[in-house]
């Protein structure tokens, strides 16, 4: 693997992202990630210590939804989108051992 200037553990990051990477992809993304991180590190030039921490691009919404159940999506329309469904339920691999 080429230069790892930023010591990026690409396998760990891919695991956090729930993505498998081939060996070629690991090398490619590792190099590209290092280049992008090099570029975004220019933000260290900017003084931000005195800013107050109101980061929202979105004004805080005072408009909270009422806790009332409203019209729902059609159950069949939703369930039928699942790759594996039966009797109105989605089937997944077993997650609890006996």
């Amino acid at each position, binding site marked *: 693997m080429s230069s790892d200037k930023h010591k*990026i553990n*690409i396998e760990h*990051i*891919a695991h*956090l*992202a*729930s*993505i*498998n*990477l081939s060996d070629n*992809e690991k090398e490619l*993304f590792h190099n*590209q*990630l290092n*280049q*992008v*991180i090099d*570029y*975004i590190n*220019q*933000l*260290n030039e*900017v003084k*931000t210590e005195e*800013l107050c921490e*109101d*980061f*929202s*691009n*979105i*004004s805080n*919404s005072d*408009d909270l*939804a009422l806790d009332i159940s409203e019209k729902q*999506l*059609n159950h069949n*329309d*939703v369930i*039928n*989108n*699942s*790759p*594996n469904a039966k009797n109105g339920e*989605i089937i*997944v*691999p077993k*997650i609890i051992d006996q």
Partner: protein
Amino acid sequence: MKNIQQYNISSLIEDLKNGNITSYEIVKNMLEAIKKYNQYIGAYLFINEEEALKCAQIADDKRASGDQGKLLGIPIAIKDLINVKGQPCTCSSKILEGYISPYDATVISNLRNEGAILLGRVNMDEFAMGSSTENSALGITSNPWNINYVPGGSSGGSAAAVGGHLALASLGSDTGGSIRQPAAFCGCVGLKPTYGRVSRYGLTAFASSLDQIGPLSKTVEDAALLLEVIAGYDANDATSKKISNPNYSECLKNLDFIKGLKIGLPKEYFIDGLNLDVKDAVLNAADHYKSLGAEIVDVSLPHAKYAIAVYYILATAEASANLARFDGIRYGLRKDEKNLIDLYKNTRSDGFGDEVKRRIILGTYVLSSGYYDAYYKKAQSVRLLIKNDFKKVFEDCDVLLSPVTPTPAYIKGEKVSNPLSMYLDDILTTSVNLAGNCALSIPCGMSSDGLPIGLQIIGDMFEEELVLKVGHIFEKTTEWHNLKPEMNYE
């Protein structure tokens, strides 16, 4: 009957009212044009031929009985990440193959309520991640002005359809320039509304604090009408603003506003490496506004150069969270495995393309333990500075003018192997998304290679009315928006 190339929404509404044409005829002609040209341009992924003709007939009947829907019988193309009930919504990704939307996005309900016809779904970069539509997993889209060139992205299909006269207008989405840039590349109008102006309910999320749905159209007048229809508060979108929406079409009638209007040219947007044709076209546009009575002033957006770095931290961070839902369980592709973790990983590895994986990985990295403060929190702080730059500049001027892109459209394949080079192309558009402002892209020239050049008009928050007026007066007094591609592809 006029050639469909000659129609825009306003002129079609006129002819429909006068009985010179029917919706059925226009939709039939448009479908024939799509059959002829889509094999070259590749704008459309799915066409609702039967449904569109049926709706056209219904629209004609409604018109005959006095229905006044603002878009009655007007065919519109939809970017393939906006949910339309009963239709696929692939986001140009393998991971959503087979998914059928169980509901309409709010913008779609709004279009239907005004009688619009949903003609089909158009191509895009996968999950809106890209600037050329080359990241689509479902096909290639070409620039209608020269099919060896990219249409831009991520709303490349929308722009190619409108620029190639295969749609009267389209709805696209803009997270870092994805309406404005392809509109500039394909010679049409594109509007990114202020964040919160248009509901995001039913828009497949890429970066929730940046995404906005907006129109791509042939004229500013058409964009104004579409904004009128799609804008408005929506209780289903907590980020949607309770703010009044003027009758944008009506507002365009007053052209006296231009005298004394103060137009700023941000010096940081006239970057080294700006294509000379683009620079000349934009500066000529500024001179044109001056000749109409506007005052042109130099202004500064001091943190503009950091926009790409901020954008690619925040947008990818948000995307890594938004795309966690694509896991093979509730919809789309599933790679069956004995255990759940392997099911998730193999589904996502097979289902996502390279650019999507790259951005998810980057977003996961900048949010990960030990890096959150250095990257994500830092980027949010610089974002605030960028936002404040715009606030300050709009204390002294009314709108800003700039290029949309550093160059006109480029040849397909030129940038696919260098992601950072493609990211840097967004330098002139991403600041607007980070700040939340509105911006319009309109045709303002042609390059020496015969490709369109776009002019960006940036407005203060919720100043779409002024931005549209500034764009409209340029169209009324120039001819750039009337140029059409030759479309001799055989």
